């Protein structure tokens, strides 16, 4: 089609998507060059879009809204065009969250572990400087405070100071884990946390790094829903983690 479309309805037919492929291509090519026709096509698109309003009114289940907001919270939105800013955007709430989760843990352990307290104070100071992602932190709090959350202490045999881990696991709300006094690892090695189910193979709950004092945390990792746990364990693995544990067990804790 070199000239203008023969009929005004051609724009509507194109917008509706019912033209044959050849006709559609020809009209699209013409509209590229002809401003008047582009305007007419835009108007036709508006009219066509309005046909959607003829659909009978329906109300979606409230569960969709919840799923959407959960998706938005857990997956970091990436502002287009800037990976640096998307990294920043992820980093700040993540650090803040780690601080808050550890602060909550303090309520349980303050009396027993002064080293944790020191770490938490440092992290709390960070939290004050950073924007806290409140909703996710509340999810962490829920795991820690629910009456049916399992609380498992993970210890190693004889090392000094004693490496220790705490796992807070709730079947539906998730897992919060933190560790202290873990020895530094050689380059290319990492710690990996495992949920050992009552039946079946261990499930990875993610790898984690430790700071200079040997403290690390795993917060609300993606786990299959509703897996009953027999134990939790930390192993030393190659960087990036492995699907099934291969390295030495550093910490183990049975669900009592």
């Amino acid at each position, binding site marked *: 089609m070199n000239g203008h479309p023969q*009929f*005004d*309805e051609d724009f*509507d*037919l194109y917008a*509706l*998507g*019912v*033209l*044959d492929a050849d006709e559609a291509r020809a009209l699209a090519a013409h509209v590229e060059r002809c401003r008047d026709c582009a305007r007419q096509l*835009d*108007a036709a*698109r*508006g*009219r*066509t*879009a*309005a*046909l*959607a*309003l*003829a*659909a*009978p*009114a*329906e*109300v*979606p*289940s409230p*569960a*969709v*809204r919840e*799923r*959407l*907001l959960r*998706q*938005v*919270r857990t997956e970091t*939105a*990436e*502002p*287009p*065009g800037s990976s640096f800013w998307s990294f920043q*955007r992820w980093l700040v709430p993540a650090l803040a969250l780690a601080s808050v989760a550890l602060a909550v843990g303090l309520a349980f352990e303050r009396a027993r572990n002064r080293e944790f307290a020191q770490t938490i104070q440092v992290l709390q100071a960070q939290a004050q400087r950073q924007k806290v992602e409140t*909703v996710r932190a509340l999810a962490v709090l829920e795991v820690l405070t629910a009456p049916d959350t399992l609380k498992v202490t993970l210890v190693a045999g004889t090392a000094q100071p004693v490496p220790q881990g705490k796992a807070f696991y709730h079947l539906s709300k998730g897992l919060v884990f933190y560790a202290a006094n873990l020895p530094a690892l050689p380059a290319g090695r990492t710690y990996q946390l495992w949920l050992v189910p009552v039946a079946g193979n261990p499930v990875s709950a993610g790898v984690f790094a430790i700071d200079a004092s040997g403290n690390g945390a795993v917060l609300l990792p993606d786990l299959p829903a509703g897996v009953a746990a027999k134990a939790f364990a930390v192993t030393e693995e190659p960087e990036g983690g492995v699907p099934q544990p291969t390295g030495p067990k550093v910490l183990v804790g049975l669900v009592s």
Partner: protein
Amino acid sequence: MKSGGLVPTTGPLPDPRAADLDLIRRVVDGDEGALAALYDRYSGLVYSVAKRVLQDAGAAEEILQDIFYQLWRTARSFDAARGSLPGWLLVTARNRAIDRLRRRPPGDRAATEEAPTNFPFPLEAAVSRNEMMSRVKAALGGLPEAQRQAMELAYFEGLTQSEIAQRTGEPLGTVKTRMRTALQTLKRALTA
């Protein structure tokens, strides 16, 4: 008796389209509450279109969630284009649902692609949205049965004119004439 004039206690009603753009800017800044507000305003619109096309609540809900998640991720490009959000939502909901119905791979369309830049119907306010729904339903319902059926097969099932001819067992020429006539009538009804 001295009496004061009546003065408005509130400012003018906020412009719904400006309110949408403000919410979109907040979504760009990562404000979940703003996304929730847009969802509350338009989820019914999106879901109704997807459900009408797919006739399946679960599939329509997936499309609803996907579209608002796409808005969350691409709000920046939408903000720059300043189009009509309901216009984009309607076009996207229909296209996604048709892609799924016809088992086409979903096109990775940008937020503003294929949406009319000048959507002529103010759907941002609930009152005018309901009015427009009645108007479109009346326009479509006022068509002769065969024309209405052809329009619905094209719009809600994504059939081409040839496919409509096959489906209805009528000659292609008849279908083409029917659609042109229907579109002329609808254009008059919707632009009046």
